[in-house]
């Protein structure tokens, strides 16, 4: 039994006006184990805190109950007070007699009676409290960024800037991501490459940044501060250290019929390729699916022309193990596949394109050299119809329920650019709503309408039918209340965006949670938007939700700030109120493991002494206190009661129940 001291606070008149504080102290003094009970005007004041500290010494208190305001207000204050007096801070319990008593009751007798009961519950609990010590775990001062798009690059640059090593793992042969494929950026219309490529070069040249291109994360073990990651470096059949990026091989390769993924298949490339001129690293990669040498052993042209001797047909996937203190997920997005949207004739006519394909068609480095030409006949289009929300804001299973957020703005950009470069084109935009909530966004959209004469039509396109080289567009104009029939030369579909397919298996490895759309869940939707609930995992860019470039960069820097904050620490102080299994009672059934949102529970086979000098091998749960956040989900999932939560143990909560109901 503890030696308990009870301190009843008046909180000026906040408590004392409604609760007879003297009586509360007097009644609680009779509770078992209470050796000292008093009341004071302001317990949280300097004088009040000193009174508590003196009483701890004088009465040799082993537990302290403070009847005051909400623990959310001053629990920490009083814990520190007691700690200074040599009492373990977790031997303090607060009875909330202000917010949950004096402020909600008017009758003094009622409020006093309730305050006594609340105090009694706190006393009952403190008797079962145990001193808790926060554990610490060391922090590996290196960060991993998964995904080398603008989000990953920005995060890596910021982390490196703070002086920490950071690795970027990018599954493509070059970093840069989706932004490399974009022509101009809204709302300023500056060229994407002009602002992105310097950052790519910065990343490549930064001593603190190591780029693993054409690589994937293959396993993640460990926990915050101590992740152990295996990175699979896929064989590119070119020695990165030797390749100078001269590009001769990519010109000489005889296999010319490889759809160029960088241009979304709008043109072809060779089997050995560098995705684009400013690729980082600027190293060639052999596409094993198309290389004749790798497939049949006959060819070897690239090897012959390479003066650096960088070609290596025998290269194998390499696995690299590395330790990290923090991991940033920046896996980005992709436009959805439009196979299910046959009404827009996407698969029937090459002149029906997605917005990203349209970017390539407008891009000076694209398949048409920046001249807008119809993919079907290379002719200049005169009427272009843009269709918004293709697959976004859908309530059927074909599309996505959410708004893809970026489409309104890039469509305005596309429409505007068309009208600017080719004033003879008629441009129609069909929309459900135009959403432009960003700095200078609405102004941008209005310019498209007002200055550039883009025809914005509220309504949906019902059908696109290719006919005689034209695209017959049937649409409804909801404001004009009429059906429209437009003979278009091109139709551009603003396809919804979705998280990259690599995100789901990655989330499983990281034990990071995802929402039903496979976007990573943030630790708190408002207050912790760049952290995953899994400690040490941070979120950057569109993997967390649709975002435009400015937002992505902002989030990327925010995630970097969080990582820097973490890596700056030598040790992490763990929350001591964590789950703890009683190994002797653990069944090894894994129920707890299944409900842990943090992956804090693992199982080990362990030897135990059995009856009659036997040895038993049993599977038992282990909780990693550095990862456990103390929610208690496991304690209820455990049928044998082997799992308990420190600070909120079964017995403590039941003691409170008993005290309240008695």
């Amino acid at each position, binding site marked *: 039994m503890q030696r308990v001291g009870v301190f009843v606070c008046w909180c000026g008149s906040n408590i004392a006006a409604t609760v007879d504080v003297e009586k509360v102290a007097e009644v609680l003094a*009779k509770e078992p184990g209470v050796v000292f009970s008093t009341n004071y005007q302001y317990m949280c004041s300097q004088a009040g805190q000193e009174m508590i500290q003196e009483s701890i010494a004088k009465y040799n208190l082993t537990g302290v109950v403070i009847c005051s305001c909400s623990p959310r207000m001053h629990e920490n204050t009083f814990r520190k007070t007691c700690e200074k007096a040599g009492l373990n801070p977790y031997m303090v319990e607060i009875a909330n007699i202000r917010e949950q008593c004096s402020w909600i009751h008017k009758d003094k007798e009622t409020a006093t009676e309730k305050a006594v009961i609340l105090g009694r519950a706190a006393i009952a609990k403190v008797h079962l409290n145990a001193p808790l010590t926060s554990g610490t775990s060391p922090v590996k001062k290196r960060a991993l960024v998964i995904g080398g798009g603008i989000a990953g690059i920005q995060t890596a640059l910021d982390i490196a800037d703070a002086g920490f090593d950071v690795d970027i793992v990018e599954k493509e042969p070059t970093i840069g991501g989706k932004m490399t494929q974009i022509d101009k950026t809204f709302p300023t219309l500056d060229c994407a490459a002009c602002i992105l490529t310097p950052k790519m070069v910065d990343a490549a040249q930064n001593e603190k940044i190591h780029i693993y291109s054409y690589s994937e994360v293959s396993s993640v073990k460990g926990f915050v501060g101590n992740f152990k990651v295996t990175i699979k470096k896929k064989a590119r059949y070119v020695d990165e250290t030797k390749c100078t990026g001269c590009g001769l091989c990519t010109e000489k390769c005889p296999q010319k019929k490889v759809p160029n993924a960088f241009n979304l298949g709008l043109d072809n490339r060779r089997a050995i390729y560098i995705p684009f001129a400013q690729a980082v690293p600027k190293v060639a990669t052999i596409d094993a699916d198309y290389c004749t040498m790798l497939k049949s052993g006959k060819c070897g042209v690239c090897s012959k022309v390479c003066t650096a001797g960088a070609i290596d047909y025998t290269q194998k996937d390499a696995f690299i193990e590395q330790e990290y203190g923090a991991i940033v997920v920046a896996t980005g997005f992709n436009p959805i596949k439009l196979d299910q949207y046959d009404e827009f004739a996407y698969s029937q006519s090459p002149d029906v394109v997605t917005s990203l394909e349209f970017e390539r068609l407008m891009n000076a480095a694209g398949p048409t050299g920046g001249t807008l030409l119809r993919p079907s006949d290379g002719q200049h289009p005169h009427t272009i119809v843009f269709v918004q929300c293709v697959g976004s804001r859908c309530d059927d299973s074909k599309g996505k329920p959410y708004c893809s957020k970026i489409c309104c703005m890039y469509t305005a950009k596309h429409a505007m650019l068309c009208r600017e470069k080719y004033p003879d084109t008629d441009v129609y935009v069909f929309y459900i709503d135009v959403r432009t909530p960003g700095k200078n966004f609405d102004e941008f959209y209005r310019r498209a309408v007002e200055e550039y004469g883009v025809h914005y039509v509220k309504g949906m396109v019902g059908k696109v039918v290719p006919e005689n080289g034209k695209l017959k567009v049937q649409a409804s104009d909801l404001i004009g209340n009429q059906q429209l029939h437009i003979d278009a030369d091109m139709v551009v579909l603003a396809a919804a965006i979705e998280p990259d397919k690599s995100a789901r298996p990655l989330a499983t490895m990281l034990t990071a949670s995802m929402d039903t759309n496979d976007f990573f869940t943030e630790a708190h939707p408002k207050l912790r938007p760049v952290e995953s609930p899994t400690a040490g995992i941070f979120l950057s860019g569109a993997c967390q939700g649709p975002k435009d470039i400015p937002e992505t960069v902002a989030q990327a820097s925010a995630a970097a700030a969080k990582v820097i904050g973490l890596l700056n620490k030598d040790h992490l102080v763990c929350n001591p109120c964590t789950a703890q299994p009683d190994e002797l009672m653990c069944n090894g059934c894994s129920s707890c493991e299944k409900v842990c949102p943090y992956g804090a529970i693992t199982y080990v086979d362990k030897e135990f002494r059995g009856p*009659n000098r036997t040895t038993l091998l049993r599977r038992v749960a282990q909780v990693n206190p550095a990862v456990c956040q103390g929610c208690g989900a496991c304690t209820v999932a455990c049928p044998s009661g082997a799992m308990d939560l420190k600070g909120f143990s079964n017995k403590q909560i039941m003691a409170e129940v*008993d005290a309240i109901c008695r």
Partner: protein
Amino acid sequence: MKKIAISQLNELFSAISSQKMLYIPADDGAGAAKFTPWAEGISLTDKLNTVRSAKDLFFPQVENLVNFKVEGTKIDIVENRDAAKPFVVFGVRACDCASFDILDRVFLSDPVDTFYQTRRENGVVITLACSRPAETCFCGVFGIDAADPAGDVTCWMDGENLYWRANTEKGEALTESLNLTDCDDAAVTAQQEESRKILAKLPLNGLDLSAFKDEKLLDVFNSPKWAELSESCLGCGTCTFVCPTCQCYDVQDFDNGREVRRFRCWDSCMYSDFTMMAHGTNRPTQKERFRQRFMHKLVYFPNNNEGIFGCVGCGRCLKKCPIHMNIVKVAKALKEEKV
């Protein structure tokens, strides 16, 4: 010998219960019988015996011992024994009646268990002779005559009459207060003859317990058979709780926050925490626990009680054990091994 017509049974019960609480074995609505306080509308079961034995009325599963009131450092002791009320239990079978002798040896020898003693003093036992035993009955092995049970009063029933014979002062006193007709023994003797014919045919009659009487305790104790016999034991308490002679209990406290209520409740030597002490348990596996139960009934108890076994052959454990392990199988296996 006295008698009363079966058609008058209700009147008889009514007359007894007007003086004292009366328990009779009645159907429990779930296919079994139990000792039930008689009231108008409650009638005698036609089941051979109750699932819970008549022991319950003298040694209930849960019984208040005493209350403590704690205030500050002061402890008040408050008596809270159940009020002792005179009662009559009708329809006790010969086996259960014999179990009282065994319980008496435990509870009434020094130090006397006053809770049990009070109930024994307050209780009048009316036995009912068996005429339709079950295949699991083996009371005969223990010298019990199911056709002529003991008790304060012994009864026999045939199709027409209930025959009544007072055996003790308590029985006499009760008899006098009732309106029964005198009769001769002829009907009872006839019924006993019939019953004994059936009793003689019981399949377990031949159970030979001689191995345990003069056997060296340690030999039985160390028999390798225990491991095999106990292998499938679930460690539940069914056998002990339906047993009329099991008498182990645990003392526990219940703290409702205002007072501590001390009570006792049945315990089972089959349970893993039976006789748990500060050093741990002294019977670490089910083998030891299982062995304890049968050693107690077949060896320790007779060794301390002039050779009287701690079993009355009621057959309840044979019927109720979830895995059909029981004292008969144990006795046979140990004997077989000895042979």
